[in-house]
């Protein structure tokens, strides 16, 4: 029997697991995918938001501002790559300038520090080189960029290191509450029990709520497509550049240009309502549109700079056409005590994750006293980046261990030692994408053309993988239909 069962191992579920792992609780996280960052938490802009888009007094406003501060501590503890870049919203005409002032007012009311409207083309370009013809901007110094999938992985692995049990490939399909105990069943018929149940199932949160017995929520999946540009352009872009928010889709921030901590530049996201909660597709129309809209905002790239496209899906609690403000739902359901529902955790869900986790903890603490675990280790003890060491240190390490000398991924210069550490991850996530997210291999401009076969070789020789063991990401994503020759 677990004290707490968390359904969904994304950034929010794993942040809750990390926060609660400070206490003497038996905690389980159930994740239907083979890894923790295959949902929204691995498919987003990776922007640490400051909090000026959201209605004062709302959960989004409060949790975002709180999360923005707390997250900086987490980034240090969890070795998550972060850059305090600041960001700008550009205005190209006087109507848009008015919008900037409105946003500043909201931000000030929310307690966002340092917001400033800057007028004049030259001044705007001084703050943000490349801002081009913009006549004004809202500058937000508290905004930054980080790696969202590394955050999710570090949260999950650190929670795991502090005793949280992760069940991957484990989709909870049935929940019953009997005598104060939640009885869970997964798709294979395995059963689990817990006293508290937390729904952090992202785009499936309304559906899961229904499984538990709370109707009345609905999620409308809304796809955001992105283009990724070669990191050779990185020196040209200092900080995220946003337009004045879109009025078409409620809550969408508009197509922006964002540097990533790894170097490649993001253009996106678009906003289209779709039916499929996992319709992770790229479409020709949107790819063209992103290119054009991105180019308007930041005309420094060409078609051949695009290295790939991807998409993420927002868990929107409102249907198309609904433009009024809507808030996160984070509460213990009255009808089912000890069931904590998190619904509609879309942007700024990542930024807010530490504050969401705090709220969840406080909901539990209202009913029971949580006892501190003395040996809690808040730091992520893995995930060192060889490429970031000094040349002297690199030479020293390469002498010490041949695996530090052998470079497997040539685009990102990832060593064999880092690849092996990623393969030996504590969650036992076994897909190629799991290695990709942890070690950053197969992510650069050649998209694995060079290192993928090498990683396959390591998995075969050193970890005994058979052809049928190789899986790209989701269940069923087999790589090989077998051997070529029967004899060897």
């Amino acid at each position, binding site marked *: 029997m677990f004290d707490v069962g968390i359904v969904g191992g994304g950034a929010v579920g794993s942040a809750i697991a990390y926060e609660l792992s400070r206490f003497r609780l038996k905690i389980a996280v159930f994740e239907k995918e083979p890894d923790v960052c295959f949902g929204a938490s691995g498919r987003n802009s990776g922007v640490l938001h400051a909090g000026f888009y959201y209605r004062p007094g709302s959960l989004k406003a409060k949790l975002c501002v709180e999360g923005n501060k707390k997250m900086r501590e987490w980034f240090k503890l969890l070795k998550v790559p972060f850059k305090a870049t600041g960001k700008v919203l550009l205005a190209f005409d006087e109507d848009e300038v008015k919008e900037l002032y409105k946003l500043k007012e909201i931000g000030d009311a929310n307690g966002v520090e340092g917001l400033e409207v800057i007028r004049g083309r030259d001044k705007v370009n001084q703050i943000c080189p490349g801002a081009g013809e913009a006549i004004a901007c809202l500058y937000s110094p508290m905004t930054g960029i980080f790696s969202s999938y590394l955050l999710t992985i570090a949260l999950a692995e650190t929670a795991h290191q502090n005793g949280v049990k992760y069940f991957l490939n484990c989709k909870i399909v049935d929940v019953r509450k009997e005598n104060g105990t939640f009885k869970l069943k997964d798709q294979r018929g395995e059963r689990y029990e817990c006293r508290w149940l937390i729904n952090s199932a992202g785009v499936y949160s309304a559906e899961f709520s229904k499984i538990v017995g709370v109707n009345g929520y609905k999620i409308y999946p809304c796809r955001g497509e992105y283009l990724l540009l070669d990191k050779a352009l990185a020196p040209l872009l200092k900080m995220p550049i946003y337009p004045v928010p879109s009025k078409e889709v409620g809550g969408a921030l508009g197509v922006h240009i964002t540097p990533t901590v790894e170097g490649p530049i993001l253009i996106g996201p678009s906003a289209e309502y779709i039916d499929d909660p996992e319709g992770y597709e790229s479409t020709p129309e949107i790819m063209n549109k992103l290119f054009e809209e991105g180019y308007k905002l930041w005309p420094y790239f060409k078609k051949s700079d695009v290295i790939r496209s991807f998409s993420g899906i927002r868990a929107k609690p409102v249907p198309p056409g609904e433009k009024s403000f809507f808030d996160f739902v984070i509460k213990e359901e009255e009808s089912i005590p000890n069931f904590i529902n998190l619904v509609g955790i879309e942007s700024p869900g990542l930024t807010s994750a530490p504050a969401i986790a705090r709220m969840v903890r406080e909901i539990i603490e209202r009913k029971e006293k949580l006892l501190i675990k003395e040996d809690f280790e808040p730091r992520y003890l893995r995930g060192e980046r060889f490429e970031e060491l000094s040349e002297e240190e690199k030479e020293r390490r390469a002498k010490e261990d041949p695996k530090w*000398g*052998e470079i497997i991924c040539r685009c990102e210069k990832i060593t064999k030692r880092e690849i092996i550490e990623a393969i030996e991850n504590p969650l036992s996530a076994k897909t190629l994408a799991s290695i990709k997210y942890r070690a950053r291999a197969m992510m650069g401009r050649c998209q694995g053309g060079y290192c993928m076969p090498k990683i396959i070789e390591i998995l075969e020789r050193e970890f005994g993988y058979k052809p049928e063991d190789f899986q790209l990401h*989701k269940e069923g994503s*087999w*790589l090989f239909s077998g051997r070529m020759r029967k004899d060897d």
Partner: protein
Amino acid sequence: MIERDVVIIGAGPAGLACAVKLKEIGVSDVLLVEREKKLGGILNQCIHDGFGLHNFKESLTGPEYIERYVERLKKFNIDVLSDTMVVNLFQDKSMILSGPWGRERIRAKAIVLAMGCRERTAGAIGLAGSRPAGIYTAGVAQRLMNIDNYMVGNEVVILGSGDVGLIMARRLTLEGARVLMVLEKLPYSSGLPRNIVQCLEDYGIPLYLKTTVTKVYGKARVEGVEYVSLDDDGKPIPGSERFVKCDTLLLSVGLIPENELSREAGVEIHPITGGPIVNDTYQTNIDGVFAAGNVLHVHDLADWASMEGELVAEFAKRYLEGELSKAKRWIDVKAGKGIRYVLPHKISGERDVNFLFRVDSPYKNRYIIVRDKDRVIKKRRVINLHPAVMENINVKSEEMKGIESLEVMVE
């Protein structure tokens, strides 16, 4: 810091041939660096034959072709550092080497870039649809099958008619997969005509020109693709969408010279070839940094890459001996009408030059003309010109006496 006379980066057909040649002509201090354990570059995975027809006058497989060079390498006792990647290259001609043995910075008097090329990916061509397993570039599939012994799929559609894709169509068929079709967006194949015959026609694999994939289906593994016909402007023709069920999509949509290191060192890159801009001594804008093989421009035959490596060896030797006098002036070579690119990009006019070029689309019964404004320097009749086939035309220094400009064109 250790200093070597010549360091060659990459031991494919170009780098190997360059190393052997350097020794033959008396340069003794040569270091050949290769990131793989095995020398030979791409040819290790090319187990089909057809290599060496020009250089050895017989048809060899890729590994056999390489073996010829490796034997000579051994005979000459050439210094080879395999399993070693050049991870950084600097303008002062120093570089950082890294391998299981450790990591070290060394310097060279002359450097030959021979890093080869990589493949254009699904992301780079803006492939639409989902992102399932089963989308491979043809070269990766070739390596996984021929070196690592994995079968990559059963029912295959190939997008792009580059040579590697054509060769893989045949290979997959021989291994029992069903290759359903090859799709090419252009009105002509981008692979060599002989490969169309030997790899597709002989096996009854259809090639659909002016056709492309518009969408990939499948969440976990490829389940099929949608493809459309294109009009003369390359735009999809509405209503022509068709669906084909398959579990694998192979991409053969172009090769890109591998110039990350060159860029880092400050070598200027040509926008069309994707390789360094070189003069008639195959030197880049950095003195003593040369380029040969696919890193310079994508060759259709390994033999040509090797020949380029040998040519560069001669220039590198003369550079070391201080005999490669700086040209008084450089004349930019213009790719005129009908020409996609021409190499070298700059000439002195003082040296014989074998111009290498590719045309921008197929032509029949035309003239290749080399001219200085209105003065025709050279003119040659050709029956067939195809973008997939690299052409050349030789011009002697006497013929270029007094020129002010130079243009190669099709007429």
